[in-house]
């Protein structure tokens, strides 16, 4: 009797341990699979497009025949121009919003409405943001398909991401820093501007650059706001900002790299296909660079702040 109980106990232990081993094995397999997918996706894109990427003229020539021939120089420029305008609008607003929510927010309905609104914005499909941008900026404001419409739509997409990043970065600053400032008779404003934001800067920079990667690859919100037509000719040296060929004119239509891929991915001609893969490789490279840059810059700033 006692012996069989001991046997049962042994069997139970053995079974548990075997299950443990099986579970660990399965999990290892899953993780291996995920890593394989990520790595092979990145390598696949790069290998498909790397040749085109280094083809002379791809990065320096305008596209021809509605994007199926030529290069992607203007799309590359437009992508960065859109990104910079988007950050120029969304960064100050997000910074202000995050500071309000962390430092000033009085308890009560206003704050909870505001944080719910930001949360809602973050979960809205980007196509809905694009439709709203189309209706309000392109149609009602009469901006038509323009860089400005696109940048404002991207701003709406970017603000919730940035607010959350900056909020987190400010909350991670030790409370003792804030106490020290306030106890010397400084305002919350001075505390935030001169002490909290500098301390939070590495995290803020990392978050902003990462969000820039997201903005850079976003396309759905741009289809109806900045449009899908690549400019045929851009003049970078004119100061006539109203001219449709002036590169800096924010009221001209534009096409980002991501939108360009969407526009021509179904084109059957071999040349169009090499352009698609080249553009995808370019987009991936930029996003990877943003990713790496975010980490390096963040770490460098953090080191500079703590070491000195």
């Amino acid at each position, binding site marked *: 009797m006692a012996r069989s109980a001991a046997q049962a106990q042994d069997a139970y232990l053995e079974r548990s341990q075997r299950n443990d081993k099986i579970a660990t094995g399965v999990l290892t397999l899953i993780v291996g699979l995920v890593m394989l997918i990520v790595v092979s996706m990145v390598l696949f894109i790069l290998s498909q497009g790397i040749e085109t990427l280094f083809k002379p003229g791809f990065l320096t020539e305008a596209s021809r025949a509605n994007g199926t021939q030529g290069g992607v120089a203007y799309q590359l420029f437009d992508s960065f121009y859109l990104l910079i305008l988007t950050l120029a609008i969304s960064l100050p607003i997000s910074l202000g919003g995050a500071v309000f929510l962390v430092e000033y927010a009085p308890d009560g309905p206003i704050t909870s409405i505001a944080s719910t609104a930001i949360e809602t914005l973050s979960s809205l499909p980007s196509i809905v943001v694009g439709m709203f941008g189309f209706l309000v900026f392109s149609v009602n404001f009469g901006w038509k398909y323009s860089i400005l419409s696109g940048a404002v739509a991207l701003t709406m997409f970017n603000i919730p991401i940035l607010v959350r990043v900056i909020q987190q970065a400010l909350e991670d600053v*030790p409370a003792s820093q804030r106490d020290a400032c306030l106890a*010397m008779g400084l305002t919350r404003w001075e505390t935030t501007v001169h002490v909290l934001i500098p301390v939070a800067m590495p995290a803020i920079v990392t978050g902003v650059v990462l969000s820039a990667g997201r903005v850079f690859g976003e396309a759905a919100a741009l289809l109806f706001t900045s449009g899908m037509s690549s400019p045929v000719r851009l003049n970078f040296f004119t100061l006539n900002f109203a001219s449709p060929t002036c590169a800096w004119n924010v009221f001209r239509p534009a096409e980002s790299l991501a939108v360009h891929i969407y526009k021509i991915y179904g084109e059957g001609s071999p040349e169009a296909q090499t352009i698609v893969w080249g553009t995808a490789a370019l987009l991936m490279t930029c996003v990877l660079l943003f990713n790496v840059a975010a980490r390096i810059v963040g770490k460098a700033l953090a080191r500079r702040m703590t070491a000195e």
Partner: protein
Amino acid sequence: MSVETSAVETDSTSADFMASVSSSEKQNRVSGFAISDEVVLETKDVNVYYGNHHALHDTSLAFHKDEITALIGPSGCGKSTFLRSLNLMNREIRGCRVDGEIEYRGHNINTPSENLYELRKSIGMVFQQPNPFHMSIYDNITFAPRRHGVRGKDVLDQMVEESLRGAALWDEVKDKLDKSAFALSGGQQQRLCIARTLAVHPDVILFDEPCSALDPISTLAIEDLMRNVVKDRAIVIVTHNMEQASRVSNRTAFFYMGDMVEYGETEQIFQRPNDARLNDYLTGMFS
């Protein structure tokens, strides 16, 4: 690299400290007794609430010029809450309400119209953890004064030297004023925080367990410093360390569960406590 250097320097200076500490111990034997009648800061029936929680009941205390007052008591007794009421820092905590009168130089400061920013220049505060800013030593001292409108390199230079000398830190850091404050040792950082507070010439300095994160030698240095800077101002210190209270303070108040139970000259509080709870606390029945 810098960490190692500062560690070595701390060691070389600690001997000096021991010397200076013991010498000033000898001249400064007055602690334990009241020495002044001039009240700088006074509270009348102060109550503090966190939301619905009544954290401090009807506390009335007076703080005198040239004197150090210690607030002692077990954790959660309300002593830090009370301390943070004195410079209205509790207003920075959401849901916290302070009732009652807090008179600074005869005028009630616990009013909505009180200018917090001017007040906090007069009533400085030093915290539990050394909390220098992520700036150079020089900028740590000048940051607040510059924000308060002090200008001119000569003025600022002089202020830095005075404050650092006042905090007995000048000799250790005068050659590295442009170095980050985080390169200093913990004790040096805390003295820097005191120097930073001295730079705005406060009338009262509140210390919230200033030595609880420090080693014994640094602790003695801070205590010595308090005795030096108390001249012409009032100091209030919250401490868990009863020896510290008995070493540095002129008067002591004992808090227990949100009540100020007993208040008197330090010598009397420690030698002849009236309240049974205070007696139990002093004899180590609870802590």
